[in-house]
């Protein structure tokens, strides 16, 4: 009996050690960081990456228009069943923002969800999508962010429920959910661009795909619509099972916010349209092509 008990303790210790090992924050390999640092960055090109990435939707002030969308003081609250995540200041301010970071720090944050201090970020920051970013886009975006105004707003703490306050646990979540595999096939150049804009930069699935109880995306219902995490209503299913707009309609919506019935985008999607309106028409067409090619996801029978 005593030996059996010791055996159990040993197993538990091994499991705890294994979980601790699995959950450690993992940064990019040196070679990748060197490749990113070697990119001759183009800040103007980074502006498009910035808009495609939707950075302003969370890091600029809520409802900001025009130039105010370039002041990345943070403060937007993302409400969820785990609590509220508060977007931080990512302006180039050296103390309040991320002005003291290196491009390598930025790369580890964006592509691996690890802070310069070596802590996990919560996946409310969509590094699960940004993990697909190219070195060039990452470096160009970093260069663009340097050109933006400094903001001295201090960060507010997240308002999360226990046990989600334990950041180390995010490591286990990443082990399950952080992957650089694409979801959709991309058999043409346009679809490949569309997939990059949707699955990587635009992180559309973060809202349009339902989640499991641990907050991981349900890949079998990719873009099939989801509960609105921040309140009433639903985020719509945008697969061809529910959305019958033409590709031209989708591109026009992403440019103007008008649906084919001339209703207009609302809520967080209005902010997304402000971003997509800044992209070249070919990018909006690529997104539309990708959306038209999504695998249809039927509505759940009953809820």
């Amino acid at each position, binding site marked *: 009996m005593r030996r059996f008990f010791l055996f159990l303790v040993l197993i538990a210790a091994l499991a705890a050690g294994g979980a601790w090992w699995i959950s450690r924050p993992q940064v990019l390999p040196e070679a990748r960081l060197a490749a990113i640092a070697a990119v001759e960055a183009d800040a103007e090109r980074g502006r498009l990456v910035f808009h495609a990435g939707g950075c302003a939707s969370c890091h600029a002030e809520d409802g900001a228009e025009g130039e105010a969308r370039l002041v990345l003081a943070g403060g937007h609250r993302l409400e969820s069943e785990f609590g509220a995540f508060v977007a931080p200041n990512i302006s180039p301010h050296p103390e309040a923002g991320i002005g003291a970071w290196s491009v390598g720090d930025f790369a580890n944050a964006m592509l691996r969800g690890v802070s310069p201090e070596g802590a996990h970020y919560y996946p409310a920051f969509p590094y699960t999508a940004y993990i697909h970013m190219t070195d060039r886009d990452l470096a160009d975006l970093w260069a663009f962010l340097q050109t933006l105004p400094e903001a001295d707003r201090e960060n507010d703490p997240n308002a999360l429920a226990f046990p989600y306050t334990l950041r180390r646990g995010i490591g286990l979540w990443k082990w399950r959910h952080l992957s650089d595999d694409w979801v959709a096939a991309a058999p043409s150049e346009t679809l490949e661009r569309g997939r990059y804009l949707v699955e990587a930069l635009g992180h559309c699935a973060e809202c349009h795909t339902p989640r499991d109880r641990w907050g991981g995306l349900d890949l079998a219902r990719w873009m099939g619509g989801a509960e*609105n995490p921040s309140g009433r209503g639903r985020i719509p299913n945008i697969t061809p099972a529910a959305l019958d707009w033409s590709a031209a309609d989708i591109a*026009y919506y992403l440019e*103007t*916010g*008008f649906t084919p019935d*001339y*209703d*207009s985008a609302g809520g967080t999607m209005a902010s997304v*349209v402000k971003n997509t309106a800044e992209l070249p028409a070919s990018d909006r067409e690529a997104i539309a092509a990708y959306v038209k090619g999504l695998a249809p996801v039927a509505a759940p029978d009953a809820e």
Partner: protein
Amino acid sequence: MISHANGLGLHAAAASLAAALALAPAATLAQDFENQVAARQGQFKIMALNLGMLGGMARGNIEYDADTAALAAANLVAVSQLGQEFHWPEGSDNIMLDTTRAQPSIWEDFDDFASKWQDYGTQAAALAEVAATGQEALGPAVGALGGTCQACHEAHRGPELN
């Protein structure tokens, strides 16, 4: 013993009266504002129909016609001139009702809501100025008008209900 029972009965009667009184204002609050919601949604449908004419011409899906464009734009201006006082009673929001996507933020910051409605009127008037001048003027003017729709929707309209 009997008086005690009576006491209880009185208590019960008093309790049910209190409950009835407590419910009465709630019942008033829980009215569905059916007419007000239908009226305001109707005006947005009028906007959508007329914007559809102009947007369709701007995109080349509908053949441009100066008179049609002018009429559609005039209708958009006319909607902007409807007094909104009766359309937005307090409590007719998407927390209280299942029939609307109007968020409580409208009533929390009614000045902001009113100023966004005014922005719509300004852009509708600008669109009406140019609508009859040619097809190429429509795109930018419709786009600017759409920006005012989205600014208000971003702040004050919730997601789809189902």
